[in-house]
């Protein structure tokens, strides 16, 4: 008899679906089947049971081959690397839970590290735009219950957030939206004819890199002012029509993705999209939500926020927190050669960073704390495989709308495997020993007794 675990959260995308059901083997070690998840999320669970997983740390040898080492040796190497470093980068965090992130930050305070998360190559420009002009937003349940105009701009949830449309934004019947998708106008803006675009009531296939112009044109059209005949390749009649639909909705929302954050204009595109949203609040109710990628990249920004006040690119190398995107962001640090060690946690810069940055990681003392072999583990000096968060260990994660959800442990990790929280805690304690300090954040025994 297989057991079923319900209300499981999915450790894939920022939609952080928490309604999965997973059947597991009697001994609680293997995932057998996954229900309610999309194809990607489902694979992530099933992969945990694959036989080719690396279950012990591996150190790179001089000939380029890897040799298995113990976790003790891995803790020692990592602690020594960070303790000796003058300016280590501690990058990633977006697939780790908030508890592990928090321990990482303690380490960064002790060793003077720079904590940066995957937003740096994803929604970092959105975070900068929010610092410029704010953000009128809402939770995903508000979309489900109220929204009758839904815009996807530079994103393709049909592939990147597969259940977004059915669970939150287009199809669900909510409290004031009993007609489901029939009561919603779906607007998609993208240079490509994506599968999301094919579903749209209004599809605006704009010229690539012209998002800022089209957003500005919408602001003009919303105010009823004159437009040139075409903007960004879109005829002005279509723009006026779209503006009318947006103004006449009862509750509208703009979802936007990396098509606008990482293309020409970057944070300025988002500035303008937010101002469109703000303008629309003069006429009706409108919100805007970033389609965050990793399932807990939002959580990393939150923990960094309450501990240091900045959502990413937080430089603790002087002991106090500094933030200056362009200076304290990972790729800028790597490409300027400012770093002397790299710790990667729960992410894969080897796949997503420019080759010049990847080469720099490969040149430096480096540790990758990631569950599986990936391009980053293959260029690091030490690969520390850990239990997969939200499958083999639980912890707090934040959805794309900042809603915190506690993920569940579904199965046991392979025997003897540590979680990233356990591994990082041991590294922190070892660094404190090396530096001869009391553990930060906890009073010493003498202090606790009031001595």
């Amino acid at each position, binding site marked *: 008899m297989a057991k079923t675990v*319900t*209300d499981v*959260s999915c450790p894939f995308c920022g939609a952080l679906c*928490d*309604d999965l059901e997973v059947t597991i083997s009697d001994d609680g070690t293997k995932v057998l089947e996954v229900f309610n998840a999309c194809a990607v999320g489902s694979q992530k669970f099933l992969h945990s049971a694959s036989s080719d997983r690396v279950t012990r740390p591996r150190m790179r040898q001089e000939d380029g081959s890897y040799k298995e080492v113990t976790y003790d040796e891995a803790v020692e190497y990592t602690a020594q690397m960070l303790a000796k470093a003058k300016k280590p980068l501690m990058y990633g965090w977006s697939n780790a839970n908030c*508890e592990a992130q928090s321990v990482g930050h303690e380490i960064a*305070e002790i060793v003077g590290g720079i904590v940066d998360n995957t937003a740096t190559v994803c929604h970092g420009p959105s975070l900068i735009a*929010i*610092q*410029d002009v*704010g*953000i*009128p*937003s*809402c*939770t*995903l*349940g*508000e979309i*489900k*219950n*109220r929204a009758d105009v839904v815009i996807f701009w530079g994103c393709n949830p049909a592939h990147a957030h597969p259940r977004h449309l059915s669970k939150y934004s287009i199809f669900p019947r*909510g*409290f004031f939206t009993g007609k489901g998708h029939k009561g919603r106008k779906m607007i998609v803006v993208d240079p490509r004819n994506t599968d999301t675009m094919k579903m749209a009531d209004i599809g605006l296939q704009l010229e690539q890199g012209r998002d800022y112009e089209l957003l500005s044109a919408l602001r003009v059209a919303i105010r009823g002012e004159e437009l040139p005949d075409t903007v960004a390749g879109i005829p002005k009649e279509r723009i006026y029509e779209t503006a009318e639909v947006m103004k006449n909705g*009862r*509750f509208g929302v703009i979802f936007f993705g990396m098509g606008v954050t990482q293309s020409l204009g970057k944070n300025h595109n988002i500035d303008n999209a937010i101002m469109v949203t*703000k303008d629309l*609040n003069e006429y009706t*109710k409108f*919100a805007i939500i970033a389609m965050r990628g990793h399932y807990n990249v939002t959580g990393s920004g*939150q923990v960094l*926020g*309450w*501990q*240091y*006040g*900045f959502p990413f690119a937080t430089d*603790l190398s*002087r*002991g*106090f*927190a500094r*933030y200056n995107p362009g200076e304290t962001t990972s790729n800028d640090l790597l490409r300027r050669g400012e770093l002397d060690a790299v710790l990667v946690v729960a992410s894969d810069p080897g796949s997503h960073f420019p080759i010049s940055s990847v080469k720099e990681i490969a040149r430096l003392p480096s540790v990758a704390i990631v569950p599986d072999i990936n391009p980053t583990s293959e260029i690091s000096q030490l690969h520390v495989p850990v239990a997969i968060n939200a499958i083999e260990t639980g912890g*707090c994660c*934040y959805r794309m709308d*900042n*809603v*915190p*959800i*506690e993920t569940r442990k579904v199965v046991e990790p392979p025997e003897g495997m540590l979680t990233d929280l356990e591994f990082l805690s041991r590294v922190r304690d070892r660094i404190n020993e090396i530096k001869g*300090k009391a*553990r*930060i*954040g*906890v009073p010493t025994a003498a*202090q*606790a*007794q*009031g*001595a």
Partner: protein
Amino acid sequence: MAEYLIRNGFVFDPVTGVKGDRKDIAVKDGKIVDSVSSSAKVYDASGKTVMAGAVEIHAHVAGPKVNEGRNYRPEDKLFNARAGTNGLRTTGGFSIPTTFKTGYAYAQMGYTVAMEAAMPPLYARHVHEEIRDTPIIDEGALPVFGNNWFVLEYLKNNELENTAAYIAWLLRASKGYGVKVVNPGGTEAWGWGLNCLSVNDPVPYFDITPAQIVKGLIEANEYLGLPHSMHIHANNLGNPGNYTTTLDTFRLNEGFAANNRFGREQTMHHTHVQFHSYGGDNWGNFESKSDAIMDYVNAHPTLTIDTGNVTLDETTTMTADGPFEHHLTELNHLKWANVDVELETAAGIVPYVYSPDIKVCAIQWAIGLELALLATDPMRCFITTDHPNAGPFTRYPRIIKWLMSKDAREERLTTFKHADKVISATHLHGIDRELTFYEIAQMTRAGPAKALGLKDVYGGLAPGMDADVVIYDINPEAPFTPDQIEQAFSAATLVIKTGVPVVENGTVINNGNKRTLWVDAKVNENPQVLRDVEEKFLKYYSVSLNNYEVQGHHYIPNPYAIEVDVTQ
């Protein structure tokens, strides 16, 4: 455990009625005791002032909107970031300090308890993660109920027991402390971009009025016998002429009597009344109505208030009053953040500069002080800044200076750019009262502790109470300048929190033994409410019911649960 003796200080303690007598305070095993052994560590408080740890009744210090404020205002960290030393954490931020700085800064001023003023239940986990990371001070959080769909539906049908059962369920699910109401009905209306500006404006679709919501929640609160009363931020905040709405809201409280075992006497706590005491009908003839407001408050013992003092700083406003923040961004054109929370509430954030050169800001400053100076019962009027809305909590020492010194406030009042207009629109110039140390102890310690239902634990120095003891370096019997008041209250000579010295000579020395307060209300099983909860989660929430409750283990490592039981 350790013993301490705080020797020979001038003690001000409303709980024991001590008004500046020289006394010793003994501490053993985390409690105040009558006496200690000769091995106790002695702190000499000769020539200094001794009080209990202060109690913050209303501040926005943890949670999603506070953190959005931090993350979207990097400028708030300019020139104030500090490295951690001696086992302490890195700190930073001015109007919205990081969690570490929040704990340390409260402790340095002698505060040992704080109540987070507005917790969106869906984000309760986030609030508790921040509370956990705020060192030293004990904290609780008030979940918001005034725009919650369950509450609106039950109260529309006058279902008192269901309302109470739902409150009990949500307090447990969110690990919350009491019933907070923000712009009742108005924030739900904001879901459609609308608002409720009076107590009789019907809520769209739900067809219930703010008056019904307020009265229903007072009744449910007393039915449960919760330690704290219904805690309200009324409709129509911040608008000229809104004092009539405030008085209308006060009157909804008439006819209720407190029912609880905690010694709490009020049935309504109205917060940041400064923002609700405005006369005039536009910004030109904007004026203080603190007199009318305080006449009412003084005459009604079942009402407590806090002030919401404007501190004349650049700060970050944030409230669950979503429509107000939209209104504010239209006024000052600074960056606006907003979050509407499904079925429950909303929140908005806008930075604000309270400039002494702007007439309205100066009038707001005066109103906040007038409220405290016109209060005849300091046990029912508490000092707050509605942190960070009217100013950061780190300005409490300055507010205490203004309240204790006519000279200090006259110096400020008469040097405003529009001093003449400000004086003619307010009453402050004609008020000579200077609050005493004893009255300050009532307004910042014994009063708020009693209003929170915690009078036997916090805010006093009677044997058996928690050992939260503070020494301030000021001699009440020797002459002192106004600035010495501010200096003394800014950096306590000694702070003992639950029996552990955490601050010495103004410096934090220990991360303390922080606890999280929450109220565990037991009610008879209510199948109707459980069915409604299941249905709403199935149909309308975006998270699963089984993933909603905040589990204690990780989020609340050191709980202080207060039980109430109405199962008979």
